[in-house]
């Protein structure tokens, strides 16, 4: 079994707000992230897949294909977008880095037929990242 990681970058804005909370609760829990006009990050995405090395090609996965799937399913949907307003799953859930990692897993997992998805890692900044392994 060999693990392979492909990196991609995207930039997007978001804000944190739960309509079930009072304005005071939203401010207390989310602080600066509650600004309704949003703020942005340069996100780095790392997608790790695992599988056996194909005898003939020497590949775990065709990187060109993995790159295309990541571009189509994630980057085109999220790059230079306001996540709360323009990405469907964040109309009713908060686009935290945790939820972003889960959302990216759900977008990629059904499309990856060639290798098994092992981990989605999303860096919000160089000092903060979230890992999701598909665990319930």
């Amino acid at each position: 079994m060999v693990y392979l990681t492909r990196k991609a970058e995207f930039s997007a804005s978001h804000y944190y707000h739960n309509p079930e909370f009072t304005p005071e609760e939203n401010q207390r829990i989310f602080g600066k992230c509650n600004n309704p006009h949003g703020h942005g990050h340069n996100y780095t995405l790392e997608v790790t897949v695992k599988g056996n090395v194909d005898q003939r090609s020497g590949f775990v996965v065709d990187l060109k294909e993995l790159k295309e799937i990541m571009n189509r399913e994630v980057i085109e949907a999220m790059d230079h977008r306001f996540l709360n307003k323009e990405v469907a799953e964040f109309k009713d859930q908060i686009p935290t880095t945790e939820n972003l990692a889960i959302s990216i897993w759900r977008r990629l997992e059904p499309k990856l037929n060639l290798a098994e998805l092992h981990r989605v890692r999303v860096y919000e900044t160089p000092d903060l990242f979230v890992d999701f392994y598909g665990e319930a």
Partner: protein
Amino acid sequence: MKAYLTRRYLFSASHRLHCVEMSDAENKAVYGKCNNPHGHGHNYSVEVTVAGRVDPRTGMVCNLVDLDSFVQEKILERFDHQNLNTLAEFQATVPTTENLCVEVFDILERDFHHAEIEKVRIEETMLNSFEYAGGREIRY
């Protein structure tokens, strides 16, 4: 849904690697330059990984404000700009980054209750890093 959140913090400290049970010659042989009696320093980078279910109301494993304030008060204020050898926790153990890593993990596991502590990783330099997960296997 269970997720793992990692936050990186920085601090600077000095230390000297010296074991009182060894002779001076042994200390010199084992620790080399790190045995210099005047000590030397590093910029440490500490990565704290917490784990837990993502709260559907907040979208968070734990609130970063809670983690940041805990680490600031209990870890950075304790170790930043200190000589580690002078601290109580390193009177009986040598302040290697292995022992520092275990110490930081234990502080978090003992007193931080907003999420599970999965792992602590410390970079002593860009070339050395150490990881401890309370004795469990580390997940990559």
